[in-house]
């Protein structure tokens, strides 16, 4: 498997209520071992997956949101967030976790993983991909 493909995982659903978000994250973590050119997109209710301060004690489910902060360690450094989806829900970048990765080419400088993009820009990124996983 020498060919490297552009993989994008598109996350469109709220973190709880259905299992899609959690099982998508499981694919993302396993997929990281395959050394493809991976990026993630969060749009529609999917933007709620990245919000900080999630508390699931009232619904008896595991709060898996801390896992997103480990994505940098899996060399997943491109996380696109649809700006309009945030705005439609009264959210801004400040409501999301601060996700970072360390750039080994620049003495492990810490860099932001989240790229806030307009819907039009996100459409262009989607069009560049070889494989779209849709959750």
């Amino acid at each position: 498997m020498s060919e490297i493909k552009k993989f994008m995982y598109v996350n469109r659903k709220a973190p709880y209520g259905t299992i899609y978000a959690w099982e998508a994250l499981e694919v993302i973590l396993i997929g990281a071992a395959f050394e493809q050119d991976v990026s993630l997109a969060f749009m529609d209710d999917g933007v709620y997956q990245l919000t900080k301060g999630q508390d699931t004690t009232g619904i008896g489910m595991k709060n898996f949101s801390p896992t997103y902060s480990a994505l940098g360690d899996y060399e997943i450094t491109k996380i696109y967030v649809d700006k309009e989806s945030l705005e439609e829900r009264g959210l801004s970048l400040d409501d999301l976790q601060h996700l970072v990765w360390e750039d080994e080419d620049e003495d492990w400088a810490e860099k932001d993983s989240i790229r806030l993009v307009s819907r039009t820009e996100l459409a262009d990124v989607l069009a560049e991909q070889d494989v779209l996983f849709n959750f």
Partner: protein
Amino acid sequence: MKLTIQVNEGPYQHQSADSAYFFTKAALEKGHKIYRVFFYHDGVNNGTRLTTPPQDDRNIVNRWSELAKEHDLDMVVCVAAAQRRGIVDDGEAQRNGKDATNIADGFRISGLGQLVEGAIQSDRLVVFGD
């Protein structure tokens, strides 16, 4: 074209389980290759042989099994999703101390890596789900 099919929804609950089958069948009839059919989320429930639909309804599970037999399809049920939802083969029953199995003919249980590898090896990943 070489295709990997991902089925994300359960049988009878959601039409995408039917659509995935019809698409796969049509693609094979058109001469395309199906590298793998991967069942994820509630889609793993397409692989239980204990399904008993009413006689005047389609049998979604048997339909997949027959298609797999006819075309030698590789139909993979995700192990993590299967464990949550009680889809069990001999190996899983043994590993997890279960007293029964229910995997249908033509299906096998394996890891998520099979989905990712399918996407790498195929010209297209076609996803059926919500």
